[in-house]
């Protein structure tokens, strides 16, 4: 059935992506493709991979934006990794004419059955996030599976049973957990950092959350890094008088 589950269990497995610390290295996207092209959704085909117009199936795509810091007006780069948000009110599921697209009752993961998908691509039109990926070679729609073949995989060690994009992130910008449970670590993180929904106006009630980039002082404090000084601000005079005099002489300042 492509109706949404009538009795969801309340469990909502999802990802939280910290836009503040994502460095845009694309490790998640690459590792995602690596895992899934060998997994239940594989192969994730590419068309014209080495040609002039390469394209292919990627469950994770990282977009990069230049933004202006609201607080201090400085410019910064925000990397935005995008994958399926496993929405509570998933439009891609209800538009599916065949029942191939479905949302799991037990954990809220949205999946596509490749054996019944007719490849009409209507779900890709319905998804406001562009998270659906059509496989030209197989003629069926594919998408992020929340690494369903990892997180319940008893052949893997306990700590490996998380989506591969989370385990591979070198910056620790990705988190995985039950967002349906308000007491879970991931839900607390979202509450603490004011995690937000993408395009809430679409009414899709996404499960995945994003943590906003922190601005100015809050960011440096949180990261424990020295704050960047403005060019005309004199250094703090914590050094001794002699060393500070030398410092001023060497940096061309007035004595």
């Amino acid at each position, binding site marked *: 059935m492509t109706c949404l589950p009538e009795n969801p269990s309340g469990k909502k497995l999802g990802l939280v992506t910290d836009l503040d610390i994502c460095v845009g290295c694309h490790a998640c996207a690459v590792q995602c493709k690596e895992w899934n092209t060998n997994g239940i959704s594989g192969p994730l085909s590419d068309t014209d991979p080495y040609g002039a117009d390469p394209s292919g199936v990627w469950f994770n795509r990282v977009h990069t934006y230049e933004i202006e810091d609201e607080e201090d007006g400085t410019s910064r780069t925000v990397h935005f990794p995008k994958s399926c948000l496993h929405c509570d009110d998933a439009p891609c599921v209800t*538009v599916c004419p065949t029942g191939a697209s479905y949302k799991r009752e037990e954990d809220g993961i949205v999946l596509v059955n490749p054996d019944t*998908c007719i490849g009409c*691509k209507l779900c890709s*039109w319905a998804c406001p996030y562009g998270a659906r990926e059509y496989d030209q070679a197989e003629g069926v729609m594919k998408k992020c599976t929340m690494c369903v073949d990892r997180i319940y995989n008893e052949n893997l060690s306990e700590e490996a049973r998380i989506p591969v994009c989370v385990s591979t992130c070198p910056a620790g910008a990705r988190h995985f957990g039950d967002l349906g449970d308000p007491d879970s670590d991931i839900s607390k993180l979202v509450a603490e950092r004011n995690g937000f929904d993408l395009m809430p106006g679409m009414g899709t009630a996404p499960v995945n959350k994003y943590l906003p980039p922190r601005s100015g002082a809050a960011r440096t404090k949180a990261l424990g890094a020295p704050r960047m000084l403005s060019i005309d601000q004199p250094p703090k005079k914590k050094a001794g008088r002699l060393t500070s005099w030398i410092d001023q002489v060497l940096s061309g300042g007035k004595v």
Partner: protein
Amino acid sequence: MHPAKSVIFFTTATGAGYGLLVALFAYSLLGEAPADNSFTWGAFFSAFFLIIAGLLSSTLHLGHPERAWRALSQWRSSWLSREGVAALFTFIPAGLFLYSWLTFGMTSIYTFLFGALTAILSLATVYCTAMIYVSLKAIPAWRNLWTLPVYLSFSIMTGTVLFNFLIELFDTALPSLTPAIFPYQSQFNWIHDLDYSLPNQRDLAEEREKITNEYQDALTKHEEKANQNHEKYQFLNDLLTATGDALVSTVEEFLGYFKFSEVRNMDELNPDKLEEDLQVDYPDGLLVIEAKGVGGTSTDSDCQQISKFRFRRAQERNSTDVFALYIVNHQR
């Protein structure tokens, strides 16, 4: 927004087809029947052709056209699925609409009912097609108040244009090009009305009617006579083809036809005693007859059988005036 070309063709073709069915229903309400069925056939064929071609074309953009039937299953949630179901359901009343138009006429109550159902389901199908797009919240270009009215009006508009084209084609253009194929179709049919009949024409027509009737009556009577005659002399044919009891009674009838008055069918008089089939009394004595339908030549025992009966009868009568006749029908 780059929908597949097959989907654009599907939308245009089925829209026109369903619009044409709606136009045909509206036309049937006017009750002005065309002179022959060529327009009806042509219009329904066009509508069905457009719809079927469109539906087939719509499967071409699928990654797996062979699984298209699965798209009928999710009518509870999916407008695409509802469209497929509505499209297929429309064929039922549309077929009956055509059938009752041809059988009961365009103004009959059945034509009206099936026509109305066809029009409603046709519009419902176009409605579902439009709702596929209207329901996509993510695409503001489609999710607005224009989409639905535009789909419905384009469907009705193209259907009506097509309707006008077809009625011109079958009512005027084709009949004037090839009048032989459209004998009943003419713009000048009114000239054949009685109001415009020539002098004597009506009397001559009545006379013709009378002659036709007389001829028909005479013919019927003659046929009856021929049948009776055939029945009367049927046994002469039966004599050549019958076998068993039928052959015996045919021979009996044949002897009667030859004016033998004392013919006895022994099988009927004495069913338990299986000896000769017939006995005939005549002035010189008694004739015993055995009649058989045998393929090929009779065996000796077949032939001897009747002489055995002849001796028995002679013994009974204590006289030698018993004669035996063995009739074989081997033409069968």
